[in-house]
């Protein structure tokens, strides 16, 4: 499966016109065609694609993701140490933790808001609560994220100076004590985390609400009510657990997104994450980086799907028994 994915992405990437030597900065009369040709030879770009793929696959067998063309030949994936003990950190190694942290925090906020909102909307279906939640969600869903970001950056950063505008840390971060470092990081992460979670709220709220509505119409809920259980117990003990099952699928599907990052958000907030890394690598035709991210991304997607299936089996006895029988 991974070989298939990598083969297809390798060929698509090489179908795109141009290579590392044809970026805009290289369109400089001082830089001669011969020197560009030398660079191509250095990176084996003059060989047929199938040979290049073979070379890449050979390196992959030893989990060697290679070096970036564009970023001073930094390792793509993990750090290397040279003879004098200078450590060069890998590009993915630097970008992945940042993106993961932001997206996990964002997912946590989204879920902690979406589940209660979905339940309220389902219980008060067609009531004013439901309608205002739906309205709020759709406003959030429809507002372009970058626009909302710029508005909030202006209001919270320029007019009021409550939050930093962009970047990950203050310039004097190193000189702060631990508590101030944590505060500093959180204030820098506030906008990049909160904005995508607001705009991502609509989908999950709707899922929870619809799941809840389905479940609440089931016979066993009627039974539960008929035997005189309190409304609270009916909703939270009996209905909710079943209504949340589809969420497992959603979360499983969102795993690739967790490591993918968003180009636009990362660009606006000046965050050196995966989205920006991938986008720049595509523009620069930095093949090793593109292939490294795609490979790790597809491997993680497969793992995510597997985890979702396992979690499903854990949460839903029907699935589990189905597996046992066959």
């Amino acid at each position, binding site marked *: 499966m991974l070989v298939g994915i990598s083969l297809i992405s390798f060929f698509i990437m090489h179908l795109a*016109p141009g290579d590392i030597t044809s970026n*805009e900065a290289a369109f400089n009369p*001082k830089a001669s*065609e011969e020197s560009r040709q030398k660079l191509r030879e250095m990176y084996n770009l003059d060989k047929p694609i199938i040979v290049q793929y073979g070379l890449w696959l050979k390196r992959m067998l030893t989990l060697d993701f290679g070096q970036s063309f564009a970023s001073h030949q930094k390792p793509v994936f993990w750090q290397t140490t040279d003879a004098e003990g*200078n450590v060069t950190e890998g590009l993915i190694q630097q970008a992945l933790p940042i993106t993961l942290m932001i997206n996990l925090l964002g997912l946590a906020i989204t879920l902690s808001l979406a589940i209660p909102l979905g339940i309220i909307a389902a219980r008060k279906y067609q009531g004013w609560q439901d309608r205002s939640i739906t309205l709020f969600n759709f406003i959030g869903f429809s507002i372009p994220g970058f626009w909302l970001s710029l508005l909030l950056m202006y209001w919270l950063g*320029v007019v009021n100076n409550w939050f930093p505008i*962009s970047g990950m840390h203050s310039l004097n971060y190193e000189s702060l004590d631990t508590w101030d470092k944590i505060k500093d990081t959180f204030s820098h992460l506030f906008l990049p985390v909160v904005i995508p979670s607001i705009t991502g709220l609509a989908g999950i709220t709707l899922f929870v609400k619809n799941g809840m509505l389905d479940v609440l119409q089931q016979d066993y809920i009627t039974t539960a009510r008929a035997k005189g259980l309190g409304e609270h117990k009916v909703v939270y003990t009996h209905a909710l657990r079943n209504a949340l099952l589809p969420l497992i699928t959603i979360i499983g599907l969102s795993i690739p997104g967790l490591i993918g990052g968003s180009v636009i958000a990362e660009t*606006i907030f000046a965050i*050196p994450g995966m989205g920006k890394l991938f986008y720049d690598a595509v523009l620069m035709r930095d093949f090793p980086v593109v292939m490294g991210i795609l490979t790790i991304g597809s491997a993680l997607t497969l793992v995510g799907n597997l985890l979702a299936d396992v979690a499903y089996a854990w949460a839903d006895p029907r699935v589990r028994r189905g597996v046992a029988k066959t």
Partner: protein
Amino acid sequence: MPPLSNLKIAVSLSFILFIAGCHSPTDNKNLIDYNAQFPKISGGTLINAMTGEPSGLISMIAGESASSAISSNIFNSLLKYDKNLELEGDLVEHWDISTDQKTITFKLKSNLKWADNNPLTSADVLFTWQAVTNEKNASPYASDFLLVKKAETPDPQTFRVTYEQAYAPALDSWAGLQILPKHLLEGKDLHTTAFARNPVGSHYYKLDSWKHGEHLKLSRNANSVLGPAQIDNLVTRIIPDNSAQFLELMADNIDLMGLDPIKYSRIIPARPELQKKLALYKELGNSYTYMGFNLKHKPFDDVRVRRAINYAIDKQEIIDGVYLGLGINIASPYKPGTRWSNPTLTPYPYDPAKARALLKEAGFTDSNGDGILERDGKPFSFEIITNQNKEREKSAVLIQRRLKEVGIDVQIRAIEWASFISRFIKTGDFDVVVLGWGLGLDPDQYNIWHSSQQAPGQFNFIGYNNPKIDKLLEQGRLELNPDKRMDIYHQFAATLLEDCPIIYLSAGYGLTAIHKRVKGIDDPAPPAGIGHNSQDWYIPQSLRRNEISAH
């Protein structure tokens, strides 16, 4: 980043609409009068921002502007340009050119030291030359230095190069080559060495810290070969988005940034609290936008047709409409105000009547009355291609309209950069391009105009072939005397203007906003731009940012 530029325009537009309706931020900094007199005192931190991160700080390998922007504060070259763009010594005390113009002898200043206290000698210069010409390093700038036949170091303060034949751009090339320390780099692979992220140089500043994707901090180099700079620290933050940079500028978190014409002439002047703290500067860059013909395609091989199109285009309209007036009309491929620009030349005026007459002379008439001219039954119709650059696209639209008025049908296509180069420019499969040249300070433009430079991937992709131009370019390369050289390039520019292989559309100003706490900046900008004396800029004590609270 072409696909992002659409987004950026959208972002900045919505942003402008928004801030126009907002109330102004208030803080006590507004009470400070930045225009008062302050004593000159060294120290402080200057914070600026860049959209891209350097890949490394060995600029002969990195090759991108982000890298040289930082490394030019860390490394010296043998020569440099003064405020009027004349060459002067940087590491070099003086230099002599032999009578046959083939040998240049550089005499280094005495007691030069690297930031790590090791002496800087001619051996370092020789090492740098060997590095840039080493095939293994594949430096994009090797070609100028490969012409050196012999490089030698008779003593630790003397470096001598001999060329096969006189090569006038040599001096400029030595002003561009940053000298690297031999004792730290000998035997290392320049493509992977950790030195590129932890350099040791000789200039005003040294690298203090580099946080990947966040910022680079330079601090004063005590061993600076040109004496101390005024400002203690230079911090460059990496903020990829222009709108975010501008917000940081408004919030006083960065001190300077490059502007686009809308910010320069609309947003900042409309907001008194920004005007109070920001000073605006404009300087001519070494670049211009042009419309180039594929001279191998008919009818662009006919000079009458090229001139007619030149007369038919209103260049001032493009400058006013696209650049909000922040550009000038040029008549030669050199920066106006420098010695290479021929002051007697004037650009083609906007004259549609003349354009129509020339087209008629070339055999174009509107025989079927549809408003489009024909020759031999074929309508005069072509396609302008450009890369996805908003200014160039807008210029093309204005050109389209003006050419329609004289009876030429024009289509426009904007293409992503890499496809643009590999599908159209390299193959020569285009009629007309709208593009720009950003040029060095040396007048030699052999690579762009000489008829031998037409192979795929070379820069004379318009297919220009004029023996007179070829001869002038060859002469210009052989003449090291600046005054004689100037005459050659004045003639070259005049011939080029008359022959009209391209149409100069405009040369835009570089626009910068700098916080008024930074003093000592030349205004108006000299030919070399405001940055030429940045080591003398200073920030008065009372205006310094409270560094503890800086975001």
